[in-house]
C-alpha cells in the first residue's frame, strides 16, 4: 500500500475480514438450502437429502442433540433460523451486521445500508415457521449476497480495507467449497463405481449448483463425472468458487496489503505456498493420493492461515516491540 494511503486500524481490518466472511457464509448456507429444497422435488419420496447438509456444515453432533432427526423442517430451522447456532443464516447476518456497524466509518454508506437492509428483511422473513420458508427466500438472500459483493466492489475504493474484505470472502469460499466437496464426494462415490442410478446426475448436479457452478462446469467439462466435478471445484483456474481461484485471489489481496512493508509475514508465506501447490496440482494425482486427505489437510492449512492473519495484522502488539513505521517505499 502506498504510504500516503490512510492507515487501517487493526481492529477495523479484523472486523472487515469477518464481516465479509459472515456475509459469504450466510450466502453459502442459503444456497445449500435453496438447492436442497429444489432437489427434494425431484427425488423419490424416501430420498432424504437433509442429513448430508448437516454433515457438510460439520455440525452432525450438535444438530442431533438439539433437533434429533434431520427433516426439511428441522434442518431449515437449524441452518436458517437458529439464533443459538452461530453459523445459522440469521446468526451470520447478525454477526456481519455487527461487524459492519463497528466499521461504518470505513465502509461506504451504501455497503452499510445494504448489510443492514438484508438483516432487517431476513429477520422479518424468517420469523415464520420453518416449513413455510420457500426456496424463494433463500434465492433472495443469495442475490443479496451477490449484490453485497457488487456494492462493495463498485462503491469502496480498492484500498487496503477493501482487500481485507476480499481476503475474508475468498478464505470463506475456499473453506466452504472444500467442505461441500468433502462430504458429498464420499457420499456419492459408491454409485460412481457401480452401475449408477438415474439420480446420480441429479445429485452431482446439485453439488455443482450448491457452488453456483453447474453451467460453468458444462462449458468446460461437459458430462458429469465425480473426477471432473472434484477437479472443477478444487482446481479450475477461472471458476470464482473453485478453491484454486479463491486462494489465488486471496494471495493477490494479501500481496497488495503487504506491499511496501519489509516485515516478514507468516500469513503471506503460508498462503503463497498453498496457492502455488494448487496451481501445480493435477486432478488425478489429487484423487489418487486421497481426496479426503487432501481436503482435510487443506482445511487445516486454511485455519493456519487464519491464525497467522490474526497474529500478523489484527492482534494488538506490544508497543515496545514495535518498529514504528516500517515502510520501505516512499509516498507515490
Amino acid at each position, binding site marked *: *500500500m502506498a504510504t500516503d494511503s*490512510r*492507515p*487501517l*486500524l*487493526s*481492529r*477495523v*481490518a479484523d472486523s472487515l475480514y469477518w464481516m465479509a466472511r459472515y456475509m459469504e457464509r450466510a450466502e453459502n448456507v442459503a444456497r445449500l438450502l435453496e438447492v436442497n429444497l429444489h432437489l427434494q422435488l425431484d427425488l423419490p419420496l424416501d430420498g432424504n437429502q437433509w442429513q448430508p447438509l448437516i454433515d457438510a456444515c460439520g455440525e452432525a453432533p450438535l444438530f442431533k442433540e438439539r433437533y434429533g432427526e434431520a427433516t426439511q423442517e428441522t434442518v431449515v430451522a437449524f441452518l436458517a433460523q437458529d439464533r443459538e447456532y452461530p453459523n445459522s443464516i440469521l446468526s451470520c447476518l447478525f454477526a456481519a451486521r*455487527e461487524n459492519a*456497524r*463497528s466499521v*461504518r*466509518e*470505513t465502509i461506504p*454508506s451504501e455497503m*452499510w*445500508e445494504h448489510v*443492514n*437492509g438484508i438483516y*432487517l428483511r431476513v429477520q422479518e422473513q424468517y420469523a415464520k415457521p420453518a416449513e413455510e420458508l420457500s426456496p424463494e427466500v433463500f434465492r433472495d438472500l443469495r442475490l443479496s449476497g451477490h449484490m453485497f459483493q457488487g456494492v462493495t466492489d463498485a462503491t469502496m475504493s480498492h484500498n*487496503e480495507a477493501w482487500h*481485507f474484505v476480499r481476503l475474508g470472502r475468498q478464505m470463506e469460499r475456499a473453506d466452504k467449497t472444500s467442505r461441500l466437496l468433502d462430504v458429498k464426494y464420499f457420499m456419492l462415490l459408491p454409485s460412481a463405481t457401480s452401475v449408477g442410478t438415474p439420480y446420480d446426475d441429479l445429485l452431482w448436479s446439485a453439488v455443482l449448483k450448491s457452488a453456483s457452478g453447474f453451467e460453468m462446469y458444462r462449458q468446460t467439462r461437459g458430462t458429469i463425472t465425480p473426477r471432473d466435478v472434484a477437479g472443477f471445484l478444487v482446481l479450475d483456474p477461472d471458476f470464482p468458487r473453485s478453491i484454486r481461484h479463491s486462494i489465488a485471489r486471496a494471495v493477490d489481496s494479501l500481496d497488495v*496489503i503487504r506491499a511496501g*512493508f519489509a*516485515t516478514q509475514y507468516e500469513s503471506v508465506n503460508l498462503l503463497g505456498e498453498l496457492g502455488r501447490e494448487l496451481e501445480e496440482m493435477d486432478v488425478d494425482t489429487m484423487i489418487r493420493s486421497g481426496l479426503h486427505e487432501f481436503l482435510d489437510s487443506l482445511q487445516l492449512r486454511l485455519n493456519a492461515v487464519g491464525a497467522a492473519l490474526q497474529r500478523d*495484522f*489484527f492482534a*494488538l*502488539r506490544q*508497543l*515496545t516491540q*514495535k*518498529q*514504528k*513505521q*516500517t*515502510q520501505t517505499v516512499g509516498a507515490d
Partner: protein
Amino acid sequence: MLFDAYQTDSFHDEMFHADGTVRPEARLLLETLQSLGEGHLQRSQHAAERMLLQMGITFNVYGEAAGTERIFPFDLIPRIVQAKEWERMERGLVQRIRALNAFIDDIYHDQKILKDKVIPEEVIRSAASYRPQIHGINPPGGVWCHITGTDLIRHGDGELYVLEDNLRVPSGVSYVLGNRDLMKRTFPEVFEGLRVRPVDDYPGNLLETLQSLAPESCEDKPVVVLLTPGMYNSAYFEHTFLAQKMGIPLVQGSDLIVEDGIVWMQTTHGPRRVDVIYRRIDDDFLDPEVFRADSLLGVPGIVDAYRRGNVTLANAPGNGVADDKVIYSYVPDMIRYYEGEDAIIPNVPTFLCWRDSDRQHVLQNLDKLVVKAANEAGGYGMLVGPHSTKAEQDDFADRINANPRNYIAQPTLALSRVPTLIGDRLEGRHVDLRPYVLYGRQGIRVLPGGLTRVALRKGSLVVNSSQGGGSKDTWVLAGDDNGN
C-alpha cells in the same frame, strides 16, 4: 384538512402569529403543505421513518438490553428561522463562545475573574466538573471550546434565551445533517421557492477546525481521529457518521497507546502517530491515570501527552466547569468582563440555591419552578414543578436542603411551539434549538440552523431523546422572508 383545527393556544408559535395568520417566513411552506393531497404527509412521514431504520440512524437506549437501537423520531414539519433573526443569534453565539473560552482559559491559569471577584472563588472550587489536574495546560491556539452545542429556547415573550452551553461533548449534529438529507429525499417539493441555507459543509468545517488546531510541532498533515467509547454508546451512530464524513479513523480507547508522551494508534502495519483527537468520551473516562482510575474506555497517559503539547484533545478536558449550572448563571458577567459587552442573547433567569434568599424562594415555589441539578445533562436530575407531584416536590426539597450548591431553579418556560404531525393532523408541540459552533484557528463559525428538538408528548416541555423527544429540520432562510 391538516390545519383546520390548529390552535396556537396561548403559546408563541414559530409558524403562526397569535391571531392565527401565518408568519411571512412560513407562508410558502404553509401553501405547499395545504396543496398536498390527502394522506400525503403521513405517507411521507412513514417513508422517512423506514428510511431512518434502513440507514441505521439510531441511538442506543441506556438501561435496555445491549444493542437496543431506536430511531430518533423525526417530524417532517420544519422549524423556520428568518435571516435577520439568525444573524442576531449567530452574533450572540460567537460572543458567548469567545467569552466562555476566555473564562475557561482564565480559570486554568491566573483566575483573574476570581481575583476581581466577578465570580466567587467558592463556586469554582465546589463545581463537580472543575478539573484541577488541567491547571496550566495551554491548548494549541488557546482554544478550549472547539465544538459547542448551545441550547436556545424561545419563551412566551417571543425572546430567545440560552438554556445551556454544552461545552463538553455535545451530540446531535448528525441528526441535523441526516434530517436535511431525509427531507430532501422524502419531501423535495417543500424546498421549492425557498432559499434554505445548506448544512452539508459541517463535516468539512469540523475537519478543518480540528486540523487547524493540531500541535504546533506537527509538521506533516495532521492525523486526526475520532475517539468513541464504542458501539454501545448512545451516540455511536453519530461517531461513525462524523468519522465517515470527515474520512478519519474512528478509534476506541484500546486502539490507542501512549509511549513517552506520544499517542499512537495500532494499525495493520504497526503504530501510527496521532496528532488530533476529537474525543467523544467524557473527561471522567478519558484517562485512568488522571481521572477515574476504573475507566476501561479511555487511554492511560493521554492527558500527559496532551499536557506536553504532543496531541490536541477536542474538546479540551476541563471545559465542563463552565457547564455547571451555577457557573452558567455568571455567563453574562463573563461576557461583560472579557468582552466588555452586554450579552446579545440573555440567560434564563436563574435562582441559585446556595444563596439563602434564592433558596427560600425556590423552596416556596417548587410547584412553579423547574429545578435542575448543577452537574447533570440530558434531562436527568430535573423537577418540572407544574408537572410534578407533591411527593416529588418534597423529595427535591430534601435534596436541595442537603446540598444547596448542587441545585438551581428557573421559571417554567413557555417554550415556543411548532406544528407537528400527530396522527393525521397537525398540533403544536414545544421545541428548543441547538445550534453548533466551531472554534478553529481562523475563528468561530456557526452552522446555520441546528437541531430543533421537539417534545412529542402533548404538553411536555422535555425535548431530550432519552425522554420522548424527537427532532425537526431547521431552516435558516437566506435573504428576505419571501426567499429573495
